[in-house]
């Protein structure tokens, strides 16, 4: 005997659900002839929850990446400085360059040149070229920030800061920015796999790694007595 059933999988602890078609074998044994032929449907609450969890992962744009904090003495002549640590202005950019150990995206530049008597522009330079990550300040408004520009940095790049406006004895400028690590595609898949594992544990199924073709396999026998609780209508 074959029978089509609508099976609702609305478990109270997990909101993913769908519809199922059940075929029951002639001998009435639920462990035989039952086909799992579900059409997937993600419930809005579950979807929203997963989106929130994944969007809240630490390396998104609002998270903390590598932090570059520079303190620059403007007592010397020049227009270049280190992107990290204490340095003096230098005329030779080569002397202000640091090598980057990882790929990341530089953003959120902020600068404070309190006490400056002249307008200045502070900018990130990569491999000797200016980038869009810069901001400008004046003597009347000696701080600035740039939270809109992003610059992609690659391991092995040489980074430095450019500071315009020249020498001013006794002036200390401060500039900082963050460099958010490049999202790792493999990590993303692992995150997805983790969510899948969580859901599967709740469903008692074994997850598969995303991206790999799932092998056809038999589902272990399921007790009808246990499943009946989930059958809404037949």
């Amino acid at each position, binding site marked *: 005997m074959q029978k089509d059933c609508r099976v609702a999988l609305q478990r109270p602890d997990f909101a993913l659900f*769908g519809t199922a078609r059940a075929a029951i074998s002639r001998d009435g044994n639920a*462990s*035989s*002839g039952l*086909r*799992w*032929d*579900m059409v*997937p*449907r993600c419930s809005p609450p*579950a*979807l929203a929850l997963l*989106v929130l969890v*994944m*969007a809240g*992962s*630490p390396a998104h744009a609002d998270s903390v*990446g*590598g*932090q*570059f904090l520079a303190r620059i003495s403007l007592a010397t002549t020049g227009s270049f400085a*280190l*992107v*990290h*640590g*204490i340095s003096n202005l230098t005329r030779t950019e080569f*002397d202000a*360059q*640091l*090598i*980057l*150990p*990882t790929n990341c995206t530089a953003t959120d530049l902020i600068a404070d040149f309190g006490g400056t008597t002249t307008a200045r522009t502070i900018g990130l330079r990569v491999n000797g070229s200016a980038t869009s990550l810069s901001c400008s300040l004046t003597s009347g408004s000696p701080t600035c920030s740039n939270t809109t520009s992003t610059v992609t940095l690659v*391991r*092995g790049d040489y980074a430095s800061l450019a500071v315009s406006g020249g020498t001013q004895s006794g002036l200390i400028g401060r500039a900082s920015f963050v*460099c958010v*690590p490049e*999202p*790792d595609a493999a*990590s*993303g*898949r692992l*995150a*997805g796999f983790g*969510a*899948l594992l969580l*859901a*599967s544990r709740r469903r008692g*199924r074994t*997850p*598969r790694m*995303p991206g790999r073709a*799932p092998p*056809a*396999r*038999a*589902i*272990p*026998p*399921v007790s009808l007595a246990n499943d009946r609780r989930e059958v809404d209508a037949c």
Partner: protein
Amino acid sequence: MLTGRRSPVALCLVALAVLMPGAPSIAAEGLFLARILMTTAGSFGAVLGSATNATTESTVRYLAPTACTARDLIVDFTGTTTARTVNLRVNGAATSLSCSVTAGSPTCSNTFSSVNVSRGDHLSLSLSGGAQTGLAALVSFVCRP
């Protein structure tokens, strides 16, 4: 005999994973960028900032603020006239995170070694090859929680 098709829940979640590939695993990483002027005969350097090399390791040690795994060492010794080796040291001991350069090939990288660093460990660099006026070593690595 029971048979099954692709898990429906998996389909939903795989779709999410594909649509949101940026869900990364890195919470925050320490970037150590150093510029070491090789003006003295010292063989130690600080792991961050700009400083000259030192003969006494204790003068260049920094304290690790958190446990992390140091890796991805990259070094640029452009202008060196001799072969040199750079090594991360933890609590005064050499580690596997090192790489070597020569005058003809003054840059090196080590992306295969990793060193466990504990909160409170003392970090420093060793740089072989001695003094060379005007030479600066650019040394960087990351330390991931």
